[in-house]
């Protein structure tokens, strides 16, 4: 690693086969590509295994996830040293596929790699005796490859390729159960995502027609700024198309319909995909487009960001209201996701540095908290067969550990001071204040109240109400083990709950998500 100190500036490797530099150097540069290949390879190996080879599949699953996490950690170390690892090769004349590991990319990649490891553990235990597992875990790993691709994408073309590949990889997971309801959900999911994909494709091709092949540049690309100056109308249309395409996966109001319906998928799928991968890809796309393609001020100039902020605000309120009305746990969590993700979009649309920090840090906070809630919901469903909220009476005493994790997650979502949720909402509010968007502070307060309105009654049922007589109690000795569920089902929610707690309480420490987000904003975007 010592040799890395001397290399300060960003180095782009042009040719498909690295001609210059020693093999160690080129391998190091091509780390982003290797991460992708590793996760894709694990998928291929798992596809090859027959269904009954449980042990081998578990090994390969975990092995792949840990290797990926390790590689991301190495890249994080490199970025901390100030080296942005980049690899790119020409796909078409005038179009290159570019992977670059800059701080924002690794922020999202680290989140997805870490949560992926936990979800794989959870999924292995959750799908203990169900069929078609080779196919499930194959597509599961393909999803991780696609998410890593989205995170590490260096230009809009690469981003689009992995964005659509994610749709291809998630569809089989949504329809995994195979019964008619799952197929109907799959069809809806496709209708939204393919429609969004088509819009995004038009936007990307329009941009490439106008500007040509440009890499993501912090604070917006100069070529785009020049092009926007020369033909503002076309630039606005392209920006609108790009945002509309990305908004589908970011579940902004008119295009959020697929999220609640896709809850019919098994718990690990809804936990990971709809709380972390798919939805976050949309939000990440919004950040990349507004920050790294157009730049916040140009977007403001074109008058698109105010509209985006309004839509985000509407989504926040609408999501919370619909969550209030839901009686099924997972659907309530889904609508809560719809509203929470829009915080990120709101943070980006505001334009202020502090607002942006709030938006970016919420990317991680919401991920941690939401995945904890989905894990707990999965545990309740798996162990006690509870799907509706009114069945939750007294569950806290029957499954204490899961309920504790659930409580931490729920309180975090509401935004109580010591927890992660509060940090991001605080920054969003501060940013709004600085930018002078006072109505946003109103929206934040409203949403906090609504969150409380739909989470507190759930907590009240879990802890305060007595459990109905004769309800199965998990406290009984389970063959001598005192834990209430399979350890692999129990540990992931606890770890993520702790992580959420840590992200909130120790936010000031240098290695917390908040400080990481601040470093991104300072390093990347020189904002007034």
């Amino acid at each position, binding site marked *: 690693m010592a040799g890395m100190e001397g290399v300060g500036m960003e180095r782009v490797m042009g040719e498909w086969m690295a001609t210059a530099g020693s093999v160690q150097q080129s391998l190091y540069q091509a780390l982003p590509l290797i991460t992708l290949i590793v996760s894709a390879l694990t998928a291929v190996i798992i596809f090859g295994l027959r269904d009954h080879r449980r042990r081998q599949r578990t090994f390969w699953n975990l092995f792949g996830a840990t290797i990926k996490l390790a590689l991301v950690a190495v890249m994080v170390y490199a970025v901390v040293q100030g080296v942005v690892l980049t690899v790119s090769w020409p796909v078409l004349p005038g179009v290159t596929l570019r992977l670059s590991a800059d701080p924002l990319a690794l922020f999202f990649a680290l989140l997805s790699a870490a949560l992926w490891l936990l979800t794989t553990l959870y999924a292995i235990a959750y799908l203990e005796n169900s069929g078609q597992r080779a196919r499930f875990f194959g597509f599961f790993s393909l999803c991780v490859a696609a998410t890593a691709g989205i995170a590490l994408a260096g230009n809009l073309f690469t981003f689009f390729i992995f964005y659509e590949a994610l749709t291809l990889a998630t569809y089989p997971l949504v329809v995994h159960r195979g019964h008619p309801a799952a197929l109907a959900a799959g069809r809806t999911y496709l209708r939204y995502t393919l429609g969004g994909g088509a819009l995004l*494709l038009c936007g990307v091709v329009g941009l490439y027609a106008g500007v040509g092949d440009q890499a993501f540049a912090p604070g917006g690309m100069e070529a785009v700024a020049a092009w926007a100056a020369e033909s503002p109308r076309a630039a606005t249309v392209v920006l609108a198309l790009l945002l509309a395409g990305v908004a589908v996966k970011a579940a902004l109001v008119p295009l959020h319909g697929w999220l609640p319906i896709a809850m019919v998928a098994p718990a690990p799928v809804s936990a990971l995909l709809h709380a972390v991968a798919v939805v976050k890809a949309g939000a990440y796309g919004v950040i990349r487009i507004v920050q790294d393609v157009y730049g916040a001020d140009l977007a403001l100039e074109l008058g698109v960001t105010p509209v985006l902020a309004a839509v985000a605000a509407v989504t926040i309120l609408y999501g919370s209201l619909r969550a209030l009305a839901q009686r099924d746990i997972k659907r309530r969590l889904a609508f809560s996701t719809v509203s929470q993700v829009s915080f990120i979009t709101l943070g980006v649309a505001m334009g202020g540095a502090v607002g942006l920090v709030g938006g970016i840090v919420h990317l991680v906070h919401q991920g941690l908290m939401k995945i904890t809630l989905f894990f707990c919901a999965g545990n309740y469903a798996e162990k006690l067969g509870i799907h509706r909220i009114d069945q939750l009476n007294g569950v806290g005493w029957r499954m204490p550990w899961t309920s504790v994790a659930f409580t931490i997650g729920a309180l975090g979502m509401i935004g109580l001071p010591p927890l992660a949720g509060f940090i991001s909402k605080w920054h969003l509010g501060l940013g709004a204040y600085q930018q002078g968007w006072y109505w946003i502070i109103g929206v934040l307060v409203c949403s906090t109240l609504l969150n409380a309105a739909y989470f507190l009654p759930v907590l009240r049922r879990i802890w305060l109400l007595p459990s109905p007589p004769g309800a199965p109690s998990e406290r009984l000795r389970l063959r001598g083990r005192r834990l209430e569920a399979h350890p692999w089902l129990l540990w992931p929610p606890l770890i993520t709950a702790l992580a959420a707690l840590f992200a909130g309480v120790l936010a000031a420490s240098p290695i917390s998500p908040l400080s990481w987000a601040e470093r991104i904003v300072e390093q990347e975007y020189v904002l007034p």
Partner: protein
Amino acid sequence: MSSEFADSGLMTAELLTASAELALPLVFFVPLLTALLVFWVGSTRAPWLPPLGAALTVAAAVVLIFGVANGGPQSHHLGGWQPPLGIELYADGFAAVMIALTAVVGLAVTLYAGPYLRGKGLSLEHFWPLWLIQWATLNGIFISADLFNLYVMLELLTLTGAPLAAMAADRAALSAALRYMLLALLGSLAYLLGVALLYGATGSLHLQEVGALLEADATAAIAAALITAGLFAKAAIFPLHIWLMPAHSNAPAPASAALSALVAKAVVYLVLRLWLWVFPVLLTAPMGWLIGGIGAVAIVYGAVQAMRQPRLKPVIAYSTIAQFGYLLLLLPLVVLPAAALPAWQGAAYHAVVHGLAKAAAFLAAGNMIYALGHDRLEGLRGLTPYLSVSMLALALAFASLMGMPPTGGFLSKWLLLSGAIAAEQWLWAAVVIVGGLLAAVYAFRVLAYVHAAPPSGWVELRAPRRLPRIMEWTPVVLALLALLLGVSGMPLLQLLAHGAPEIVTQWAE
């Protein structure tokens, strides 16, 4: 080819380009003579002969492709006579790309056909000579630069295609083959009539010369109309497409793969080659709009029909009709300066990727028929444990047909789209986008069956038949090749650039 390859194999490169000119006629004669040898010896006594012939043909094709890649367009004057009198074999980038596609799909079909036909109890005795002659004819069409020679090759294509479609000899196959024969005969006579008028007007049969001598008068217009109509009948482009679905879906799987991916493709290739080399003087905006319109209608019609089919092979056959529409979109775009180069590269790229994906899809469907005995979509439910590899190949093939990003299909859609948007042709851009979405509808309808759980009370009368290993892995290899083309298009586009049509390169300077 990247520079590193050239300097290390300097000697071999020289040898390759020198022998490339000889490879030009060999690409036609090797499969032809193998076919005659197989017929003479009888395929039961020498089962190793057809694969050997296929390997030799692929070798000749590779030598030719390297020759074109390194030494630019190759040409060979048959019999030593100069063009207007003699016949010239000419292979430029477009021909080399199509020969590469034919070599790959041909090898896959040859390896797949043996076990499949033995399994279905159809006689291999007649399949081998017909298939190898068809392969020779395909290569002949790509390299021949003479109008009448193309007529003879087109006729050969029909006469080898129809019996393969009628091989199952049940009522549907026979009526399909008859319909195919009659329409194809009408098509080739219309083509011959067009060639007669062209010869009457210009006095030469050589492609480039006729293109140069032709002026945009009534004779050229009528000849172009007749030739285009004739080739549309043979390639089953939209208005004259009725025979394609029954013929392609009733033919045995390897034959329908060859028919859809190569035979009909070669005729569409010919339409493009004639319009870009012989009739550029006629290629005005209205003419481009007419043919582009036909392509657009074909895309929509094919997709809509594909959504309604209860069986798998008709879905794939109708998707062929739809996908040919994309190739026709090239003509309205190639006249516009901003869109000429990307549209040309997009159309050629689409031809290759569609060929690979379509062949993979048909061979996967063949696996299903081999295992279950029928290919009705309901039978796909719960089939994954038995045919997991074939279903993966089918999924990848459909992903490519839809133009989803990781696959080569996406790059061709991207090229066509960027050409259309660069030239502000919003209609054609919309057609490409809508075509992709419609393709997604019928593709995911089939994939939904693959993922669907078997209905309750499912009684499996007899377990699906075990597939021989080679039959299981051939479609996957083809589908992965289509995927590989998604990773980088540069090698293929560099090969295509050699001898690009003058109508495309004129805007480059």
